[in-house]
């Protein structure tokens, strides 16, 4: 998994690409979110356009990151999901948990 981190309008945008799967991407995702939270970022946007695959471990890390952010009073939102990742969030019903946006502009504005 590769990542690109940007800060725009008070929002930390973490763009991910490749696989978020057991033994590699899942751990990296956890570390990226924890580092952002620890450095004081309370508005985090995960941009998933380049993610080719995610497994249950990757999904689990996304859920853990969401909970971690919420417990610290921070927000974690998602943008630019591929159809397959959207399908996975639908079947696991996590689509009801995450705030999901189609465009980055829309997502950044939603943080207020």
């Amino acid at each position, binding site marked *: 998994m590769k990542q690109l981190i940007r800060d725009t309008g008070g929002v930390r945008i973490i763009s991910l690409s490749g696989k978020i*799967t*057991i*033994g*590699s991407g899942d751990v990296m995702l956890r570390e990226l979110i924890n580092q952002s939270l620890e450095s004081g970022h309370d508005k985090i946007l995960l941009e998933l356009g380049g993610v080719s*695959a995610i*497994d*249950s*471990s990757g*999904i*689990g*890390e996304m*859920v*853990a990151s*969401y*909970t971690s952010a919420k417990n610290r009073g921070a927000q974690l939102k998602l943008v630019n999901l591929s159809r*397959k990742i959207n399908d*996975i969030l639908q*079947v*696991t*019903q*996590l689509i*009801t*948990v995450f705030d999901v946006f189609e465009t980055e502009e829309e997502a950044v504005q939603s943080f207020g």
Partner: protein
Amino acid sequence: MQATLCFGSQFENIEIAELALERFLEPWSPSAEDLFWVQSALREAVSNAIRHGHVGDPEQQVRVQFTGENSVLTVTVADRGMGFNPETLPDPTDPDYLLKSHGRGIFCMKQFMDRVVFHPREGGGTMVEMTRTINDGNKES
């Protein structure tokens, strides 16, 4: 058509199993959709064998078999772990479990495949058998 693969119980080997499945299916020209979901189910099954079956012991062997017959792919993944009762697993979509960070692997396998059955193995361990009808990608519009 059948192929069998045995490898050490390490997460790095999941990619090899996925690649082997892709090669196995090549003569069928599977749709991208089918390939994605069967590879995803395989990944979950092998992850379970490594993490829960063999509890991270890299000396153990995971055995994977692909069988293709009349457009139906059957994938089996076998470990030598302690075994488990899949009926006792909670539903990860239940509101009490929705925010848990684990427990979605078998649920996902069942969503991605047409049929998923767990068998206890003689001598110990579990074999999961998963089937899915594979559509010819060349015939899709």
